[in-house]
């Protein structure tokens, strides 16, 4: 299977979605990213990425949960699709492989000695 390329930010978003489980939606994803990485993506950038991911089929969405704070508007919850999980795993493996082959980095100190 040919896995499509995953952008860095997209990967980040997918990881956060994976972490948030059932509670992943626009604002929560944004907050988590801000907490964990000190990056502050705008809502527009975030939704743009979510749109791309959904189009590629990496994530699924369903609507739910209107609250008063949102003026009665519903949220869209996102979750990783099976395909998405595969892609994420593949990307992780790829990075790990290449990373471990780099001489002189923390993991491979032993090869120096």
């Amino acid at each position, binding site marked *: 299977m040919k896995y499509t390329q995953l952008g860095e930010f997209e990967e980040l978003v997918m990881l956060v979605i994976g972490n948030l489980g059932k509670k992943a*939606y*626009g*604002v929560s994803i*944004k907050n988590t990213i801000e907490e964990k990485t000190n990056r502050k993506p*705008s*809502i*527009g*950038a975030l*939704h*743009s990425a979510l*749109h*791309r991911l959904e189009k590629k089929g990496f994530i699924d969405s369903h*609507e739910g949960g*209107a*609250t*008063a*704070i*949102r*003026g009665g*508007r*519903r*949220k*869209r919850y996102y979750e990783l699709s099976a395909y998405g999980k595969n892609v994420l795993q593949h990307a992780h493996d790829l990075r790990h492989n290449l990373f471990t082959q780099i001489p002189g980095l923390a993991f491979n100190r032993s090869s120096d000695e």
Partner: protein
Amino acid sequence: MSELNQKPPRWADRLLEWFCTDHYLEIIQGDLRELYQKRLKNMSRWRCNLLYIKDVLDIFRPFALKKITPVHQNNTIMLKNYFKVSMRNFVRNKSYALLNLGGLIIGMVSVIFITLYVQNEKSYDAHFAESEKIMRIRHDLFRPGGELIYSRASGLPALAGALREKLPGVEHATNFYQIRSSFRHDENAFIENNVLLADSTFFDVFAQPIIEGDKNKLGLPNTVIISESTAQRYFGKSRGIIGKNLVFTGSDTSYEVIAIMEDLPFNTHFEADILLSNYHTPTIFGRDTDHQTYFNSWGTTGWFTYIKTDLSLTEFNERLEIFTNEVNKAHKDQRSYGVFIAQPLSEIYLTSKFRDELNKTNGNASLVQFLSLLTILIMCVAWLNYINLTTARAVERAKEVGLRKVVGSDRRQIRLQFLMESMLYNIAALIVAVFLVWATWNMFTQFVDKPVLVNLFGNIQLWGILVTIILIGALAAGAYPAFVISNLKPTVIISGKFKSSSKGIFLRKALITTQFMIAIFLCIGTIASYSQLKFMLNQDKGFDMANLISIRYPVSNDPDTPAKFNKLVQELRQESTVTGVASSSGIPGILQLGGRFYTTDRIEESLPARRMFIDDHFFDVFDISIIEGRNFYINNVRDTINSVIINEQAAKSFGYEKPADAIHQTLLEGDRALQIIGVVNNYAQVSYQFEQPPIVFYFNPEGAARLSIKFDEGESAQILSMVKKKFEANFPDSPLQFIFVDEFYNRLFNNDQQFSKTATAFTFLAILVALLGLIGFVSYSVSQRNKEIGVRKVMGASVKQILLLIANDFFKVIVTAGILAMPLAYLVVAEWQQTYVLKQSLGFGIYIFPVIGIATMALLIVIGISFKTASRNPVHSLRYE
């Protein structure tokens, strides 16, 4: 929580709603709201708003935008369908369609005719090569104190030469003087009215093409250039006559034809059949100088001066001022100084209106402007018509629209359909209009009374205007109905609950009111202009011009002429059908030359007045009343020496309080002492549009230029042939030149008459269009109220009551239109009347009458149409309830 009530800026939300696609709108807005509330806990409201706006703007990315509907693949096929449906609708509702079409056709026909006419008027003098460089230089004469003595369209003999030499930037200059004389070649003799004394510089400025010969010799002694048609008249051909001779009967001199030029087209502000070398000017005018001296003098007027220059008008005027000052310095005259004014050639025909203009019908600019405005008004009325009728018909098309929408058409397509339909209407109207114009072409030329550029098809400007009209008509006028119809909601229509909205009805009433406002306004204007004209024509002119024929003194070298002339006069007096014969230097309507006079007690200040030389029958023949003193007596020797009669205006300007005071007073003219023996009323020597000039009448029974013959009622044809016979018997050399005084005088009002005629014609058209609109509107309204009328009848209303009900509605419309139109018309009419010296006090009648007239017509239409419905058995209308 109070915080929940704080909302982000509404406009930012609206912006978001505008561009964001539905799929994301709700969730994104929700997210933004949530963020907003959370931020409010830590930041000021203001900052939160700012962030909100930033976020909204940030959302403006491709993924979030509303999709523009993709181009439908079946466009061309749909157009065919629209066309088919339009045709079917047309056929099904022939009467409405024709009404609509009729209005548009009338509008377009007016546009075409008016445009052609205006183009015609504006085309004057443009045919000369480099016409934009040509200017006429005219002059005004002032007294040292700054008081204006006169304004003239012409210049002075030395002006052309001086301009050429002293004003830098003047490429060429020429001048000419118009004379009338008779010419002869072998047996062909004619009196020519369009003879210009000129030289070859004429062609430097007016590059009129030469057919044969050499124009450069004009100006040498005994040279003449004639036009093609003139050549035809004298020589029977227009080629191969170079070198032949033409005899100028005035001085019995022979001139050699050195060239033939093309006829000047009708759209020129002057006419020139013969260009006579101006070398002989002093001789012709009876002056005892030579050519050189004459053309260096600043002593006479009547020399029309033209120049060709590359300078712009402002630049030229600057230099002209300097030039004027130089000339005035060099010719210091204590009694007057002159001012020269430049007139671009293109403006002369339309705007120049001085007393000595070469073309008496100059100055039509206001008519041209009026017509342009009129055409826009008529077209507007036609368009309003279209909008009205089409929106009213929206209900009929509602089912069709509803169904289309249900099947999947979107609003854009529906709009396109109706725009196409209106485009079809407009194009159809144009085709019929062009055909009508072509068919009634002759009637039009007759109406306008001059040749019109027949460039109906090659006329780029005209077609440009027509295409613009179609575009505006189809798109702008068609857009409103298209929008209205496309906005109909299919659910409402199909459920059968659809009815015309009240807003729609109001708009339609407003449109009809506007139409009638325009029609009433035009009606008032036309009546005003017509009555002003009639007023002027019927003014007591102080003289009687009916049954009066005036002939000119023969042009002949026969030394016996005066004697023969007197004999003719006596003969004419013997005729039974002739009631009176008078000889004079001029008649009412022809401007007389002026002189200056001094009254004995005002020696320093000379007063201008016109001079007329008359006999003792003059006042009688023209029925001018002598209000003080007496007429000339043929047997009174003193009368022939120094008696004069003056008119009321002269009496006033010479300083006599009452006309009676003038009697026996002495007037000084030059070194002649004249005694006033009588005063006549201020008869209209010049057109009634101007103030009458002061006139001094001298008794000169023999030196006449004109003979005026008064005859019995109804004898005009016989008189003419009799006079002609006698005249030609006595003066075979000189063909008879005659006019009927009443026709001649009335021609002075030509401009106003044309104005009135045209205004009437087009007002009629505007009213017609408005009435067409009314017919459509009424019949439609009535059919809408079918059920209402049915119910009323069941409840016991009589036919009359129903009619009154309907009529009342429209009555209000027309009254409103009238009330709105009247003040507007009043302002315009008052403004326009300022241009006339003599105003008729127009009573309120002219405002009320059109309203009543149009209201009556409209009412008749309304009643006529609703009668059928009103008298119908209610069973038929209510059957389907």
